[in-house]
């Protein structure tokens, strides 16, 4: 009971409810009684702790209420959730995205690579008309001009191809695309004979054109050494051509590798002769010196896949020509003087009838 009284006293003292006299007495007692002082200190601390604890609890409750209130206000919690998710996984997502992008484009790229040869297979058909290097020509022209100031420098040809004679009275054949859009056309052979020619007939479908020499200096060819073959040639036959892929005449030899042309075109042969721009319009002959076709083009990116229009279609055009142009039928060569000769001999006879076709526009 004593302690109980003491507690009450202590509490009254701490609450400041003691009358002044008692308080003074109690404080004096505190100074002397260390045990009591300790008890008072402890009691004070305990009560303080308890009260503060209570306050803190209520404050926390308040804050929780505020928090709940705030969360209730921010009803669309999902965006926040997404945001949190995004914040936490942004890096992972970024890595995943880049990996998937890489693999998608990588796959696309490699598939493209695999498909590339196939694409080449179906690739473009390249017409072998030659675009003449302007710069070089201009330069030579200037030099010529210095040497011979009186003459005006000749204008360089824009394009060139190959053409060959089909009759002794000055008709020639070349590819239509060679003389396309031409202002004027000149032909020149290995011997240096130069003639002005004009396009007199065109078969757009088979890419063939007939040229006629339109020059007072022309007196007629000698007898042509080759004949035209009407039947189709056989697979594997040795064939050759002469052409002007550059300034000089060039011989090319190979074999007839297919009786159909680009993408199954039955009007043309496929031949395995390395050809270059400028070869277009050249004659294609077989071993016996029969003209079996006219060089027309090759397949881009494919080696040894060149094409020549079959001679049957050339003959067909030659037949049609007099009817539409109302001229006398052409007298085609009848005698083949090439047959049985070795190749160099054949070429010697042949080369005078193969011309470079220079196109100006």
């Amino acid at each position: 009971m004593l302690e109980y009284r003491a507690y009450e006293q202590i509490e009254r003292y701490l609450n400041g409810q003691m009358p002044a006299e008692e308080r003074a007495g109690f404080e004096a007692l505190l100074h002397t009684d260390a045990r009591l002082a300790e008890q008072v200190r402890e009691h004070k601390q305990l009560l303080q702790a308890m009260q503060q604890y209570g306050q803190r609890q209520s404050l926390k409750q308040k804050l929780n209420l505020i928090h709940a209130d705030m969360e209730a206000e921010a009803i669309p919690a999902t965006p926040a959730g997404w945001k949190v998710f995004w914040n936490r996984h942004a890096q992972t997502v970024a890595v995943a995205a880049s990996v998937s992008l890489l693999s998608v484009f990588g796959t696309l790229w490699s598939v493209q690579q695999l498909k590339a040869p196939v694409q080449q297979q179906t690739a473009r058909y390249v017409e072998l008309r030659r675009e003449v290097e302007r710069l070089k020509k201009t330069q030579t022209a200037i030099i010529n001009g210095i040497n011979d100031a009186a003459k005006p420098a000749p204008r360089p040809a824009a394009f060139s191809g190959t053409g060959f004679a089909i009759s002794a009275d000055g008709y020639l054949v070349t590819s239509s695309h060679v003389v396309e859009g031409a202002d004027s056309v000149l032909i020149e052979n290995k011997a240096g004979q130069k003639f002005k020619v004009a396009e007199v007939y065109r078969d757009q479908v088979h890419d063939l054109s007939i040229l006629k020499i339109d020059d007072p200096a022309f007196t007629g060819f000698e007898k042509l050494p080759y004949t035209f073959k009407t039947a189709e040639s056989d697979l594997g036959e040795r064939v050759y051509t002469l052409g002007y892929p550059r300034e000089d005449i060039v011989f090319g030899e190979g074999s007839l590798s297919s009786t159909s042309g680009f993408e199954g075109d039955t009007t043309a042969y496929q031949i395995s002769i390395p050809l270059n721009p400028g070869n277009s319009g050249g004659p294609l002959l077989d071993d016996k010196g029969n003209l079996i076709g006219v060089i027309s083009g090759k397949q881009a990116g494919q080696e040894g896949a060149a094409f020549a229009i079959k001679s049957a279609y050339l003959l067909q055009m030659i037949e049609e020509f007099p009817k539409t142009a109302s001229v006398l039928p052409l007298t085609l060569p009848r005698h083949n003087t090439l047959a049985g000769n070795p190749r160099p001999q054949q070429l010697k006879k042949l080369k005078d009838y193969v011309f470079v076709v220079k196109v100006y526009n």
Partner: protein
Amino acid sequence: MKKSLYETDEAIVEGIRRDDERALAHLYKLHFPMISHFILSNSGTDDEAKDIYQEGVIVFYEKIKDNSLELSCQIKTYLYSVCRRLWLKRLAEKGRYAVKLDESDSFVPVEEDTARHEEQEKQFGVMAASLEQLGEPCRSLLEDYYIKMQNMQVITDKFGYTNTDTAKNQKYKCLQRLKKIFFATYKPEV
């Protein structure tokens, strides 16, 4: 809630000083997103964010109540600094050393405040445990008398004691026990 009323930091501090709950609520809602973002972007959860933020607000609140607040920066910065500090501690306790924080704001040194706060928290933790251990009806009795500051007569009626003396006697016994339990575990670090 009128926002215009607490537009400035000074107004908020003044409001809390006047025990205006709207000021506290406004402050709480104003800065929670910042802390939440900070905790969440430093491997915390929503609950931890709430926890840390409330502790931060309490530190700030107590400082105002103590009149020991000398704000040399914005409330925002102060709260951020306190929460940052508390979170660092929490992370260290969780065993995540070598923490590299993803910092988005500047902060001011608040070690003293947080240390005081932690000491208090410890004390309150012991108090809560002691009260828990005390059991009913002692606990309610003491809480009613010392925390809710209820009248002895009310308590007597509530707990069904014959008179206030019995109640007082009971209260004394309870307090005695609480004292024992409390000081057995709590050693103030003074």
